[in-house]
């Protein structure tokens, strides 16, 4: 977990009241979010769409700057279930997260290694996902993913 940003705390102290202030997520919530993200990666790697059905909210919608397209939950489930990609590994790493009551916004990194024609092809990206707590579980309701810019 990234260190608490003192500048953020100082800023929030002078914000007008009337809404829940942003909070760095507690270690317990961060662990829960990381667990969801790990499941998400597992779903992609093993083509297990049942996991996605569980962790994505019905209104889930993702903007993907990888291909300039948008996908809904049903698209994700269909594409994951029918994928023939052979992944050596997929890792989702939560870099930062903020909590606003029952809503968490997480920022993370995506690292993929795919076996293609006897070679390992790597892909790296960033994502931002909004989670909502429903029936005691964190479900993803929106994401925005983009490839890491080449340096």
């Amino acid at each position, binding site marked *: 977990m990234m260190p608490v940003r003192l500048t953020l705390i100082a800023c929030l102290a002078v914000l007008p009241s009337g809404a829940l202030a*942003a909070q760095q997520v507690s270690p317990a919530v961060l662990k829960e979010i990381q667990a969801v993200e790990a499941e998400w990666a597992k779903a992609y790697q093993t083509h297990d769409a049942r996991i996605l059905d569980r962790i994505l909210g019905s209104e889930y919608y993702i*903007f993907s700057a990888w291909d300039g397209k948008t996908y809904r939950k049903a698209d994700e489930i269909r594409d994951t279930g029918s994928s023939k990609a052979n992944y050596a590994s997929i890792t989702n790493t939560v870099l930062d997260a903020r909590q606003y009551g029952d809503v968490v*916004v*997480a920022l993370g990194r995506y690292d993929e290694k795919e076996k293609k024609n006897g070679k390992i092809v790597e892909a790296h990206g960033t994502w931002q996902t909004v989670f909502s707590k429903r029936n005691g579980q964190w479900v993803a309701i929106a994401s925005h993913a*983009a490839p890491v810019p080449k340096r």
Partner: protein
Amino acid sequence: MRRIVQVVMLGLALVAVRPAQAQKAPKAKEVETAARAVAAELRRVWDARDNEAFAKCFAEPEGLFVSGGASYTVASLQAQNAKIWADRANESWKNDAVKVIVLGDDAALLQITFSGRYTLATGVTWEFASSAFTTVLIRRFGGDWKIVAYHNSGSGKQVPK
């Protein structure tokens, strides 16, 4: 007798249901209106190249802000905006779709799909056909709605000369 029972049942139903609906529906509508106003303001400040007004859309200087796959603060987003505007001879954008998910009385998620094109000072033109996206989480602070998380990205194509 049967009519009296019907009237009483209807009255009970109104008493039981109406207050909750009366409170909930207008609030959600207000949140959606506020969210759409934030989307319109983001478009306005970008088109006006107003970096000061851009910063005022945000609740805090260091939130979860991403643009083009890289992380930013509000200040570094402003610096990036200034560079982008300086590099572009002209540009034209429009919001194609603004989707609002109301998350409560004080929170909403905005998903904006937009399209447009820009021409660099070098003469190269890039086109984005409904393939540029902004996702923002907004919260209400007193009477103001501000951005607490922001992600902006696009997938454009260079227009052949």
